[in-house]
């Protein structure tokens, strides 16, 4: 390809890695302090006892489980974009794949932390690991929480490898363009990658297989997270729709998070030449589609509950639609359906700013949706004498906020260490598909022998 263009792409996309301003350090310090406060709050909770949260009888799960489901949901961004678009060979995915895969990995790490935070005795979380213990006991594989452990670990491993493999050629690029400690560091990370045709083939075959493998894993992960609820005989939880419903919701919130991340990167790292409005428009159309799909699932679930007239279920349903949870419920409907529908279906409004607004409301709405699945049902189980309510305590709010800060911090650090847009994949896309060279390819004797 045009060498000047290649060089420009390299220097543009390597600039955030090579140069650091005071703004970076300020952001890291700010986010880092919030994360530190969150960690401190967690230690406070472990020291004082779980009672410092708002959990009570009957609402034994609240903010932490909401956050768990929310972050695991966000993690579906990368899979959809990278894997599915890779498999259908959609060219517009190229600048977007790594941004998305990074969201997946960090969202999974944060999400996987919450089952530990919400434990009564978190120092014993390792009992979920199947190892031959001196107590001769193994985890109970019938428990959805053990399924969670396996699913999330498989997905995290897969996503991490899916992210790291295509980073190798970019590490080689950084190695070749730097000196000093950077050259050493990236030299190690690049694993002595050279870029022979054999290496490229192997890498691309592996990426193909990983893309095919990671999609069922991603679907299974959020389905299994939904099984945490649907396996229990709790009104409005024990529903067969939960698997697909949660997966749709996860992809929905994942795309919203991706749009926000891309918009932020575009602004802060000056990537206007690489992240074009058409990328946001395409993602915006996907977001609209997922909003409609999500709304369809919510409607189907609620209609069934209302029509079925099962007394406990109707109480839980009405608690969200007319009772104490109604303000949150209707906010969620506006955030997840009304606003995205209006903004994203009108082409004039489907600008980058429009997509950002719609994505922000979707993230708020999807957090509320998780909360409204967990808490109203637990407050209204089968025996009315045991109905209760829940008020979040400062501990839970602080830890929730600090995970958002943690996500932004991890993302910032990543964008500093690794080019956030996959340089080699972008260059492949820019490569003019020379019609003559393809014809020449077909004429070549060896190609004819082994097409």
């Amino acid at each position, binding site marked *: 390809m045009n*060498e000047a263009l*290649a*060089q420009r792409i*390299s220097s543009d996309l390597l600039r955030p890695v090579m140069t650091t301003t005071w703004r970076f350090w300020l952001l890291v310090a700010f986010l880092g302090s919030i994360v530190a406060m969150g960690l401190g709050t967690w230690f406070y909770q472990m020291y004082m006892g779980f009672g410092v949260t708002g959990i009570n009888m009957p609402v034994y799960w609240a903010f932490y489980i909401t956050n768990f489901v929310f972050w695991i949901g966000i993690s579906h961004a990368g899979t959809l974009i990278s894997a599915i678009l890779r498999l259908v060979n959609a060219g517009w995915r190229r600048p977007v794949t790594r941004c998305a895969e990074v969201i997946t990995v960090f969202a999974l790490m944060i999400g996987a932390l919450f089952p530990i935070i919400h434990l009564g005795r978190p120092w014993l979380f390792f009992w979920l690991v*199947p190892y031959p213990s001196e107590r*001769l*006991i*193994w985890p*109970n*594989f*019938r428990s959805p929480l*053990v*399924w969670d452990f*396996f*699913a999330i*670990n*498989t997905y995290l*491993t*897969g996503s991490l*490898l899916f992210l790291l*493999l295509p980073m*190798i*050629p970019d590490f*080689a*690029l950084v190695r*070749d*363009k730097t000196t000093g400690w950077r050259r050493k560091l990236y030299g190690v990370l690049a*694993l*002595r990658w*050279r*870029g022979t*045709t*054999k290496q*490229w*083939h*192997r*890498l691309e*075959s*592996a990426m193909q*297989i*990983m893309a095919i*493998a*990671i999609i*069922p*894993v991603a679907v*299974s992960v959020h389905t*299994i997270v939904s099984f945490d609820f649907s396996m229990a005989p709790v009104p409005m939880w024990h529903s067969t729709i939960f698997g697909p419903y949660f997966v749709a919701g996860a992809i929905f919130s994942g795309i919203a998070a991706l749009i926000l991340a891309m918009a932020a990167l575009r602004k802060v790292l000056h990537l206007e030449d690489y992240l074009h409005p058409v990328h946001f428009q395409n993602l915006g159309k996907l977001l609209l589609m997922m909003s409609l799909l999500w709304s369809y699932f919510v409607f189907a679930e609620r209609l069934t509950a209302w029509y079925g007239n099962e007394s406990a279920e109707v109480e839980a349903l009405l608690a969200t639609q007319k009772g104490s949870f109604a303000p949150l419920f209707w906010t969620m409907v506006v955030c997840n359906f009304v606003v995205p529908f209006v903004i994203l279906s009108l082409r004039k409004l489907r600008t980058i700013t429009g997509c950002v607004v719609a994505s922000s409301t979707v993230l708020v709405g999807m957090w509320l949706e998780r909360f409204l699945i967990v808490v109203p049902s637990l407050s209204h189980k089968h025996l009315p004498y045991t109905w209760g309510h829940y008020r979040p305590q400062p501990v839970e709010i602080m830890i929730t906020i600090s995970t958002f800060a943690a996500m932004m911090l991890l993302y910032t650090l990543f964008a500093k260490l690794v080019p956030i847009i996959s340089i*080699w*994949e972008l*260059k*492949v896309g820019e*490569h003019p*598909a020379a019609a003559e*060279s*393809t014809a*020449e*390819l077909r004429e*070549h004797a*060896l190609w004819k022998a*082994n097409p």
Partner: protein
Amino acid sequence: MKAVYALYSDPNDVQRAVDGLRKAGIADDDITVISSEPIEDYEFSHRHHETWIHWIAGAGGAIGLALGTGLTSFTQRAWPIPTGNMPIVAWWPNLIIMFEMTMLGAIVATVITVLVAARIPTRAPKMYDPEVADGKILVGVENPSEGSASAIERALMSPGVARLKTIQL
């Protein structure tokens, strides 16, 4: 140990150079083409196309399946603890664990294979030029046999060559 290579800007020149090397009697496996991005449209990229990786991924999945099945049913039988009127070896939940272990097996097998097949990381010094990072394409032969060095150089000196080098690895 030495290597002879040339750097080109245009993939068409690369194709010509590769063909020239083949005519000079160099085996396909000895011709190395290095680029900073995969160049799909040319024949020289499609050598070394056959790969066992799909089979290995499948084998990894099979191993994962066996591990998942063994882990669940073996441990459930090792200390049978009744829960909730369910059977001791409960196949519905076990299927979930078996599925996850299968996928994990396939994924890990794929990654290990790609690292081994791409020979990374490698200890031996290999032919490389940092100008590849600027978009140049390298065509060369590592460890050329004694008589062929001049034939290689002739093949590589096609129009469009940016630089011809002989280096000591």
